């Protein structure tokens, strides 16, 4: 009863901030009719000074290097926590979550597609540095530099294990989100990955009702499910996962030889711990496994083609997120059903601009729809590819002799180190004489 009551209060505490819905209420300007007062024109804040941008980049690279050092040299969870808190404070609350590597692939794609868009050097560094580090040292960025990850780490109170089969299935969602983010960025519609980042409103103490609710839901979930956004949604995490698979160094639970004591089995709150997989198999099942793998490989191109075809049907809906296509839709709709606007809303202004030169907006919308047709083909094919590759990977038997974290899924958070008796001996918390005998 008491536990239930605590749970309800915790739920209410987390969810109620989300009801601060109308953080962006606008106040109408006064109407100076008699005095003909001229309102000053609005100005946008000056861009961050270039030396400060480079300073941010320097801090970022230093934090990445520190994370790698703490994970591999010091093997210190407590110092990693301090690094995470620093990252949360600096990149989260001070820099307000921007610029961050999570959204940076969108900048890269837009720069590739649009010759008029110049990608700043700082964005390039923020995008590629964690990936380069992941190729050598795994997801050190997730361990101690990502403010979103640090926030989720901070609220994790009582981890509940997600069933492995569900974890595997949901691991494709970040890649699908990545695909959606990149096609919208490439089509010049906007940065949807940034728009739907659930934690940035907390860093800025302001946001729309939907995104605040989403953030609150993720934080609430994060109290019991370790890093839900990182594991099941973060598109950049998908890229890091892929890069980590090829990493030169990998996180090991034990600093010494694994004694198969199984004490680290439940030590990872993120479901990344993998148990040894026996190499010896029942010969009768080998044939079935090979046939299954063959089928999955044959299914892969079918999924890609089917996905591309299905994706192409999505183009009319997907394109409507672009403001010019939306304006064209609004204009054509009001030709048959004239729209009535009570106030001069953004939609009314958009309609007014479209009505000013309908031929231009329609031609532009036609061009954008054509681009979205191609982009949705690619997006659908990408979804098919992601699912197909995952099916193939699930059909390839793993071979593992020790308890070790999954290379792609491990956040390098160092939580599992102290579960290992050999690590405790190294830290001096266990006398060497109590070290379990090697089997």
């Amino acid at each position, binding site marked *: 009863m008491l536990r239930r009551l605590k749970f309800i209060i915790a739920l209410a505490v987390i969810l109620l901030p989300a009801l601060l819905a109308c953080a962006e209420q606008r106040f109408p300007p006064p109407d100076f009719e*008699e005095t003909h007062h001229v309102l000053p024109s609005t100005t946008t804040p000056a861009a961050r000074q270039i030396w400060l941008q480079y300073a941010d980049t320097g801090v970022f690279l230093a934090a990445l290097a520190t994370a790698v050092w703490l994970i591999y040299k010091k093997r210190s969870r407590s110092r990693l926590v301090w690094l995470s808190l620093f990252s949360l404070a600096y990149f989260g609350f001070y820099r307000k979550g921007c610029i961050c590597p999570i959204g940076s692939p969108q900048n890269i794609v837009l720069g590739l597609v649009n010759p008029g868009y110049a990608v700043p050097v700082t964005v390039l560094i923020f995008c590629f540095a964690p990936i380069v580090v992941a190729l050598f040292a795994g997801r050190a960025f997730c361990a101690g530099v990502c403010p979103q990850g640090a926030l989720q780490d901070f609220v994790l109170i009582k981890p509940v294990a997600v069933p492995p089969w569900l974890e595997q299935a949901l691991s494709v969602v970040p890649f699908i989100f990545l695909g959606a983010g990149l096609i919208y960025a490439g089509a010049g519609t906007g940065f949807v990955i940034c728009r739907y980042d659930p934690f940035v409103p907390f860093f800025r103490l302001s946001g729309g009702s939907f995104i605040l609710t989403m953030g609150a839901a993720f934080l609430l979930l994060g109290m019991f499910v370790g890093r839900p956004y990182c594991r099941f949604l973060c598109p950049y995490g998908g890229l890091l996962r892929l890069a980590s698979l090829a990493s030169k160094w990998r996180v090991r639970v034990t600093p010494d030889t694994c004694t198969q004591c199984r004490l680290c089995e439940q030590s990872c709150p993120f479901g990344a711990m993998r*148990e040894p997989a026996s190499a010896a198999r029942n010969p009768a099942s080998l044939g079935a496994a090979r046939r299954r793998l063959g089928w999955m490989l044959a299914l892969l191109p079918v999924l890609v083609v089917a996905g591309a075809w299905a994706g192409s049907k999505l183009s009319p809906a997907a394109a409507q997120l672009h403001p010019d296509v939306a304006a064209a839709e609004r204009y054509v709709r009001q030709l048959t059903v004239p729209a009535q606007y009570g106030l001069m809303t953004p939609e009314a202004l958009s309609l007014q601009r479209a009505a000013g030169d309908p*031929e231009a907006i329609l031609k532009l919308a036609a061009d954008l729809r054509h681009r979205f047709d191609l982009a949705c083909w690619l997006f659908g094919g990408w979804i098919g590819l992601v699912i197909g590759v995952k099916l193939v990977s699930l059909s390839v038997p793993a071979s593992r002799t020790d308890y070790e974290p999954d290379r792609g899924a491990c956040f390098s958070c160092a939580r599992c180190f102290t*579960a290992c008796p050999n690590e405790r001996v190294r830290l001096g918390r266990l006398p060497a004489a109590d070290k379990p005998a090697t089997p």
Partner: protein
Amino acid sequence: MNNSPLHRALCLTAWIAGLFCLLLCAVMVYEHSAAATNDPWKSPQLLALKDKLAAEPKNEPLQTEIRQMDRNFREKFRHRLELDRTGGWLLLGGMLVLTLAAGKAAALKKTLPAPQPKTDAGESSVKLASLSRWSLAGVALVVAASLVVIRFANTSVLPANPAGWEKLLAKKTGAEEAPAEQPPALAEFQANWPRFRGWDGGGVAAQTNFTTNLAWRAAILAPGHSSPIVWGDRVFISGGTTAQREVFCYDVSSGALLWRKAVINVPPSPPMVPEPPEDTTWAASTMATDGRRVYAFFANGDLGAINFDGSVAWTKYLGPIKNSYGYAASLAVWGNSLLIQLDQGEGESEAPAEGTTAVAAKAGAARGGAGEAAPAAGKSRLISLQCATGRLLWQRARPVPSSWASPIVVEAAGKTQVIALGKPWVIAYEQANGNELWRAELLNNEVVPSPVFAGGFVLLPDPGSRLLALRPDGAGEVTKTGVAWAADGNFPDITSPVSGGELVFTVSSMGMVECLQTSDGKQIWETNLDTEVQASPDIAGDRLFVLAKDGALVMLRAARERQEIGRCQLPDKFLASPAFAGGRIFLRGATNLFCLGPDAGKPAKQP
């Protein structure tokens, strides 16, 4: 269970922090919901007071009350913003304490791992892989279903294939429309008074025989300063208030009101716009007609095309209009096109404003070679619309601030030219496509008088300083080469000149009438009527008509000899210019529309 004092203390801390956060949230939610109901934009009290002010614009205590109430709302809003900011930080602190305390308490209750005996690891991994594949299939189905829902929940009215786009674009460019209307013959235009100052904007009547006998008068039903226009047996005026803008149609013989039609609810025209200055009114722009429809433009940017039977043909919103003295330029019709000179603002750059969508940047290419970006909203432009449908034919950005002159269309130098004035430029455009033909930087003052074309020259006053004659056969920048002559003097700042060809007449606001030679600008005579004049003068036959503000209609000889032929007094105040058609003169006063001509009910004798 760990019930140590530390654990109990941590739990208590977590509880207190949680309750603190809860209470804080409750306060903030209450403030937000209260703010939503006290939205100043929708406050019934404030809106009611503003409606009252619209009816009593000079009520100063009411203005003070509105200002005070508005200020109170703003102070509350600022207070709420500060509360939100402080509350946000307090909430963050509370949640920090909650999670730290709860996390530490949970850590104290953590139990040591106790691995249980396991079944065959190999078999369990095979089972897990199988289960994972099926669950992945489930996720794929959910993703597919979501995409299907998104697809069908967002239906598009735009075409799905290239053929459909071609058809839609052809429809918008008019390629698929019904065959173009045949415009009335030039003689028909000339016989009527289809726009401000006659068929060509020159103020010269086609007929010569006009009487000053008062035939009828009809009450003006809505205020306005637009001049009457005449076509056939109809005379039209426009007028409006904050609540409604209308077009009125009277019978020329009897003055009976045949119909009145409101031009309102033009999407996306906003319901509330700043009131134009009282001196300008909602309907200062004189209408135009092509014999099939009348076109009316109002100060809020609403443009309406009304059929002769009183039904609405089409409407269009061209606002909002940023003009400090109120919009007053009149419409012009030429062939099948309706011309609107929409000068406004402070003379901002021609480049599209920041934030404009790619429409502005791509419109040049979209228009297939016209080579001009669509001007951003709020910037000066010259617009040509198709009379029958309101479809945009072309529009050109103009590098000028607000002006109040009306464009004229002339046949000169082998081209049909639209000539528009706006400080400091006189610009001529090709009527068919809006391409600029020539421009001259000659105007030093705000422009109200409209140009006229006579004697082979474009005659225009530089208000208060000179009268200029330009040759219309130039190309490009003709500031130094295009001026035939310039006459210095105190030329009108409101009224437009009039010329029968040999002589040009101007009337200043204080009633000074000047006669100059069109060929060289030499002054022939001048006379002072000693009365305020805002209506532009007109010529009918050999008579020059000058309508004074106090209702005096003065007739002078339109000749080299200075001679007042006569005058009559009308009982009203006049700012609009007269219309001459069918042997009748139509004069719009502040309260009545007057017709001078044969007796009511009798047809006019044509010369």
